[in-house]
Structure formats: structure tokens, C-alpha cells
């Protein structure tokens, strides 16, 4: 089970039974628009605040994922969830009605990886038959949290990323499906001392490099053993930095690297600057785009490695650097 220095190879690999993606208008207009389970035209989702809208998205994504497996919330043993807002409030207020015992997480934009890792570890260890992993982000709530409220109407620089309005929920368990989680590489915090919160890709690329290489070494693999190595939201800038860092360690992932932030929006048509970001970016792309390819067998094995920037508004304003983390999930067609 324990593999290498940071990884786990499951003896009885849990199945990724079902998933659901709920997104906002801009995401629905993007390249993956038709693949999402639900596109909401009104970004307030019928609520009064962006935060309540994000909670509504989470609840909807959970119910959809559970429903696809013909289960009810009562059947889920534990829920692992998190978001970008302080004190994880979008998740708490989003899932409370489901009544599932839950662990609130914080991994910034790597939360989908963190939640999937914990959910699959819990199933593999025999602590329950069905676990739910969920995460979300919302452009309005993230701007208010980290930058300025939308009403302030500030201008955003070209290096900024566009926080995805979306929630992805994943049902992990023992019931057979066509995708298995065969291994996880839990990431450690990597900090190159960068302080520029407008350039998240650069802050997170070192962590992605660290976890990817750790995964390859722990599992004794080469990049070509994966159809795709998929990061969450490094964006255009972060991707080129990742390639350079990997090349410095003598790994070349140019041929099979993919980044969710670069996939979810059309940079030319949608004016999204450096690409998509946020917990919802990796989660919804995984559910809508990556998992179907694994289910069909178009891809046999991928490494899903979302990255997070572990800063707070306080730490940033006090001049601290922005450390990064990345969690690797090995997904295989079966």
C-alpha cells in the first residue's frame, strides 16, 4: 500500500463511480460548455450573494453525483469538501442540508486532489462503502475574498487568471465502474519565495514539478506511462515554467501535459487572460472532460495533479511569500 516516499498504491483500488459538474455562464460558453452536467445562466443561482450561489452549486453537484449512482445522501459515509473562502464557508453552508458527516478541507485550487485522495484512502482502508469528494469556486466570491468586490469595478491585469464559477463532486466507492483510483501522491508544500499573487502559475509550478517527479519516482514510472499529466490551473505562464523546471530535472512532459485552466476557457474569444483558476476549474474539467475519456478507454491512465497556492489575504498583505502544493491522483480505465 505505502509506495515510495509520499505515495500510496491501493491494493484494492476504489472506483470513481460517478461525478457531476455545475458551472456558470462563462464556463458554459467555453470549449467544454456542452460537456457540463449543468450550466446556470444566472451566476447568482437564484440566491442573494455570490457566496450563497457557490454553496448552491456545491449542493447541486453533490446531489447530481449521488443521483447518477441511484443513491441517496444517507448512503454516503463521509464527505470531503473545501473551497477558497475563508473558514471554508461555501462548503459548510452548501453541504449542511445533505446531513453527511464531513471533513472540511483547505488546499486552495488543489482541493479536488486533496478530497479525492482522502476519499479514496478512506474507501481503500475499509472505512465506508461510499465517499463523496466535492469542491467549488465562484468568480464573484473569489474576487471579493482575494482582490476587490465586483462592485468596485477595478481593472484586472493581463497576467491575472479567471476564477472558474463551478463545482465538481465525485462519488468514490467499492461499486464497479470504468474508472479506478489506483494511487495517490500526497504533495508537500514547495515555496520558491515568490510573492506575486497576480502570477499564481509561477507560485504553484514548483509544487507541481515536485509532486509529479515524486509520483514518477515512487511508482517507478516515466512520463509516457501516463496518457496525460494534468495540472489544475498553472495557466499559460505556469505551464512554461513547469516545463523548464522539469527539464532541469531531466524530465520532459511537453508531449502529454494538459492544464485544466488552459482547457476550460477559450483565451482568444473569452478574454480570460492567463487562463482559468480556482478549485472548480480542475474539478469541473475532471468531471466533464477527463473522466469521460477514461470511461471510454480513450485514455488508459492519467495523473491528475491539481495545484494550490497556500496564501491568505493576511499573509499576502503582510509580505509573506506564496507557497504552493500539488496532490497527484492516478486514474485508470478498467
Amino acid at each position, binding site marked *: 500500500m505505502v509506495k515510495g516516499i509520499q505515495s500510496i498504491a491501493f491494493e484494492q483500488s476504489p472506483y470513481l463511480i460517478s461525478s457531476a459538474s455545475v458551472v456558470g455562464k*462563462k464556463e458554459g460558453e467555453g470549449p467544454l460548455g456542452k460537456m457540463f452536467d449543468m450550466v446556470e445562466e444566472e451566476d447568482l443561482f437564484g440566491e442573494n450573494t455570490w457566496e450563497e450561489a457557490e454553496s448552491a452549486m456545491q449542493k447541486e453537484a453533490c446531489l447530481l453525483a449521488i443521483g447518477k449512482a441511484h443513491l441517496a445522501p444517507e448512503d454516503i459515509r463521509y464527505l470531503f469538501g473545501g473551497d477558497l473562502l475563508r473558514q471554508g464557508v461555501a462548503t459548510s453552508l452548501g453541504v449542511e442540508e445533505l446531513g453527511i458527516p464531513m471533513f472540511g478541507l483547505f488546499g486552495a485550487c488543489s482541493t479536488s486532489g486533496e478530497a479525492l485522495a482522502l476519499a479514496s484512502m478512506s474507501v481503500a482502508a475499509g472505512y465506508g462503502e461510499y465517499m463523496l469528494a466535492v469542491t467549488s469556486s465562484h*468568480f464573484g466570491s473569489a474576487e471579493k475574498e482575494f482582490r476587490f468586490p*465586483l*462592485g468596485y469595478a*477595478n481593472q484586472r*491585469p493581463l497576467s491575472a487568471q479567471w476564477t472558474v464559477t463551478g463545482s465538481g463532486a465525485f462519488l468514490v466507492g467499492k461499486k464497479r465502474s470504468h474508472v479506478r483510483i489506483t494511487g495517490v501522491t500526497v504533495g508537500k508544500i514547495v515555496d520558491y519565495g515568490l510573492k*506575486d499573487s*497576480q502570477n499564481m502559475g509561477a507560485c504553484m509550478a514548483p509544487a507541481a514539478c515536485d509532486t509529479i517527479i515524486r509520483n514518477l519516482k515512487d511508482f517507478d514510472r516515466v512520463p509516457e506511462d501516463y496518457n496525460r499529466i494534468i495540472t489544475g490551473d498553472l495557466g499559460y505562464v505556469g505551464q512554461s515554467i513547469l516545463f523548464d523546471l522539469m527539464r532541469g530535472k531531466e524530465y520532459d512532459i511537453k508531449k502529454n501535459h494538459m492544464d485544466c485552466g488552459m482547457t476550460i476557457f477559450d483565451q482568444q474569444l473569452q478574454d480570460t487572460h492567463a487562463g482559468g483558476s480556482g478549485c472548480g476549474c480542475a474539478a469541473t474539467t475532471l468531471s466533464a472532460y477527463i473522466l469521460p475519456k477514461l470511461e471510454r478507454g480513450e485514455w488508459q491512465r492519467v495523473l491528475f495533479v491539481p495545484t494550490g497556492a497556500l496564501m491568505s489575504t493576511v499573509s499576502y498583505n503582510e509580505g509573506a511569500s506564496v507557497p504552493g502544493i500539488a496532490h497527484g491522483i492516478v486514474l485508470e480505465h478498467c
Partner: protein
Amino acid sequence: MDYINAFWIGGLICAAVQILLDRTKLMPGRVMVLLVCTGAILGAIQIYQPFQEFAGAGASVPLLGFGNLLWKGVKEAVDKEGFIGIFLGGFKASAVGISAALVFSYLASLIFDPKMKK
């Protein structure tokens, strides 16, 4: 002619600020502070008043003019009431502008809801 001067001078100031926003890593708050301080200094060295007489609203509406307003208020108060004028003058001069901004933005928040950026 007044309107044209106000337009192109106010526009130039805005263009200069936009260049700062696009080409430097300065946060918007810092740029605003830069404008106010520059206006105050230009007022102190007697450049801003003739500038404002030429450009009218083009010089008084941007934050550069607000800096000048602050300087003028402090100077007048110090002339009239001595040392305490340093604390008195700035707020007295800028009271109208600040109150108007507060009142109008509050009214706007009552009428409008924030919308997502496109």
C-alpha cells in the same frame, strides 16, 4: 474651447494612469495615492492653480486635483489658525467631494446589484 481643454487634459491624465496600471505592477490603491500626493506637491510649488484655470474640470475632477484641493485647504487653514490648521484644513476643503462620493455611491448600491464581469 473650455470643454475641449477639459477633455484632452483630463484624458491625458487618465491615459497616464492607465499606462501605469498596464505597464507596472502598481496596485490601483497605490496609483491613487501617487495622484493625490503629486497633486498636493504641484499645488505647493504653485503649478496646479494656473493649470486648473486653463483646464477647468479636466484638472479638478481627476484625483490630481483632489491633491491640490487638500494642499490649498491646509495652506489656508494654517494661514488663518496657525499650527492646528494642518489638521483642520484638509478635511474642510475636501468635505464636499468626500460627502458627495459617499452619498452617491450609497444611493447607487441601493439601486443596483453587482453583476459578474463578462
